[in-house]
């Protein structure tokens, strides 16, 4: 491929057609540069406006803002710990429930599924991704929560809730809504993303590799676990990170079913709150500069958490890549 430098001096065209083409080319180049620049400016603008908006709260509360559980609009004392804890816990529950199921679906579609089912299953997964998140919230509130309250939660409280160490995780009255329900809804929402990317990545494994393993006598499970997954680990981690990013920021579905309680409870069946649910509920009526600024500070903290997760994913991928090349 010829090495074309962008800023090489282009001799002036002499014909009118040539001049017109040069003008079009110049416009095309400048406008695409402008769009790319816009994205950077937008990101910078968002970070700057978040910091400016959060400044009053950060200077008033200092670092204690991140670890304080108090959220008292009457006395104007705010702390971000309860929303941060809720965001992390719901995302962890979503990943624990969603990732194995997604892997299972992707493995089924690529390895075990009869050919006639592949297309419909694939379409069904894509459709799940297309459902608006507020529909998930309404479905969770009116359908899932009563079912959980009447069947699953009492069962969990009576069985695991009585166990010595981890019993505290499943204690409390069965509300139906709460951190656990929000985690389940998030797991359903991240499922399509992780599944479709994982499935695409699984299909890139060279058939020769798998056939060789089968030829040596491996079972399907051993082929998946020892051949396919190590080969595709970069794409799979990318898919999980994408799902995690979605789970961290999801607002409407979580707001409906999380119970909006600004408390850190030991039990995952208890109501809680997440950063996005707090902002969604209280932003329109935050009266007072410190209240509004605290909500913007919450947004800034979510931005930083997401940034760290993505950075950690990138570093992990780089390390895996280096290991793979050795």
């Amino acid at each position: 491929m010829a090495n074309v430098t962008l800023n090489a001096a282009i001799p002036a065209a002499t014909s009118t057609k040539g001049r017109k083409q040069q003008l079009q080319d110049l416009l095309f180049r400048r406008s695409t540069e402008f769009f790319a620049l816009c994205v950077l400016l937008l990101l910078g603008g968002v970070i700057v406006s978040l910091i400016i908006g959060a400044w009053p709260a950060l200077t008033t509360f200092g670092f204690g803002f991140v670890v304080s559980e108090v959220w008292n609009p009457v006395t104007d004392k705010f702390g971000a710990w309860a929303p941060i804890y809720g965001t992390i816990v719901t995302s962890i529950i979503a990943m624990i429930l969603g990732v194995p199921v997604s892997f299972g679906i992707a493995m089924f579609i690529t390895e075990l599924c009869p050919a006639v089912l592949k297309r419909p299953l694939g379409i069904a997964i894509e459709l799940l991704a297309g459902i608006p998140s507020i529909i998930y919230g309404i479905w969770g509130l009116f359908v899932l929560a009563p079912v959980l309250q009447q069947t699953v939660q009492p069962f969990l409280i009576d069985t695991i809730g009585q166990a010595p160490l981890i019993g505290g995780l499943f204690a409390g009255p069965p509300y139906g809504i709460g951190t656990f329900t929000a985690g389940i809804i998030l797991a359903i929402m991240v499922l399509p993303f992780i599944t479709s990317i994982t499935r695409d990545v699984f299909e890139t494994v060279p058939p020769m590799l798998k056939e060789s393993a089968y030829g040596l006598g491996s079972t399907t499970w051993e082929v998946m676990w020892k051949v396919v997954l190590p080969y595709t680990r970069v794409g799979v981690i990318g898919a999980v990170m994408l799902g995690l990013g979605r789970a961290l920021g999801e607002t409407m579905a979580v707001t409906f079913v999380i119970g909006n309680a600004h408390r850190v409870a030991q039990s995952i069946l208890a109501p809680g709150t997440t950063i996005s649910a707090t902002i969604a509920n209280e932003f329109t009526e935050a009266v007072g500069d410190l209240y509004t600024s605290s909500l913007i500070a919450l947004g800034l903290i979510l931005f930083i958490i997401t940034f760290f997760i993505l950075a950690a994913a990138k570093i992990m991928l780089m390390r895996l890549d280096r290991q793979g090349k050795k």
Partner: protein
Amino acid sequence: MKRILAIALFAALAWTQAKAADISGAGATFPYPIYAKWAAAYKTQTGIGLNYQSIGSGGGIKQIKAKTVTFGASDKPLKASELDEAGLTQFPAIVGGTVLVVNLAGIKPGELVLDGDTTAKIFLGEITQWDDPKIKALNPNVNLPNKAIAVVHRSDGSGTTFLFATFLAQNNSTWSSQVGADTALQWPVGIGAKGNEGVANMAKQTDGAIGYVEYAYAKQNNMTYTKLVNKAGKTVEPSLDSFSAAAAGADWANAPGFNLVLTNQTAPDAWPIVGASFIIVYKHPVDPPALLTALKFFDWAFKSGGDLAKGLDYVPLPANVVQVIEKSWADNIKGGGGGTLWQ
């Protein structure tokens, strides 16, 4: 093609122009049922509609301060200093009652009796089971199950919360010192739902729930409300009569800025959680004709909307209070050019 686009654009503009006469307001969910009824009746009479967003009292206060609406509605009256600072004035529009609703199988509406102190203990998390001796003491003949109490409160800024919390603070010193009374609180226990509608819904579908809603929501959704023991020591049922008994004691003429909260009234038949819902407007409005249209709507509601209000168990303001209110309009609100807006 261009001609079709031009015609479509013109039609869209013309259509939006025709809609420009609607009055815009936002705020409390407490009076929303009666404002919606008044708006429908007013529209059939005059053709002017009301666009009211029931986003909670906190939202109403914020939006009127941001000048995005013509009037803000709040169940929590603003203090005189706050009004003066922002150039606002307020007046009461309607009086209504807040009731407690429960979700217990086999309990009928009006069967359970509670009082201020016990309710405060429930919402503080000190009483956690329905068959607690303190609740049993008030209800000797009711079969209370051994079930956990699921407290439901508001997650958004709410004047209904302010009324309810004022009532609890007046009856329980722990509540008054630990939690206080405002539109948004740090609730010790419970799940939060958005709006009176959200609390009604959540209480309806959670077994063993207790919540607080404006009476119209409890009535419209056939919910199980409770009786309360009032300040005079009598057990009263929520109804237009008990709300009116509480409202009758209000001395509106001598309250600066109409800043009155009607909870815990001493009248023998008074319902203990009664309050007025306020309308907040600017003294020097940005759009005087829009405010004048809104004031005419409220004038119509005061004079002809009383029966509609009573049908939903809200207490309409008596004629002498309406006179004081309209005099405050003439004194406080200035139109474009400095003259009084309301004649």
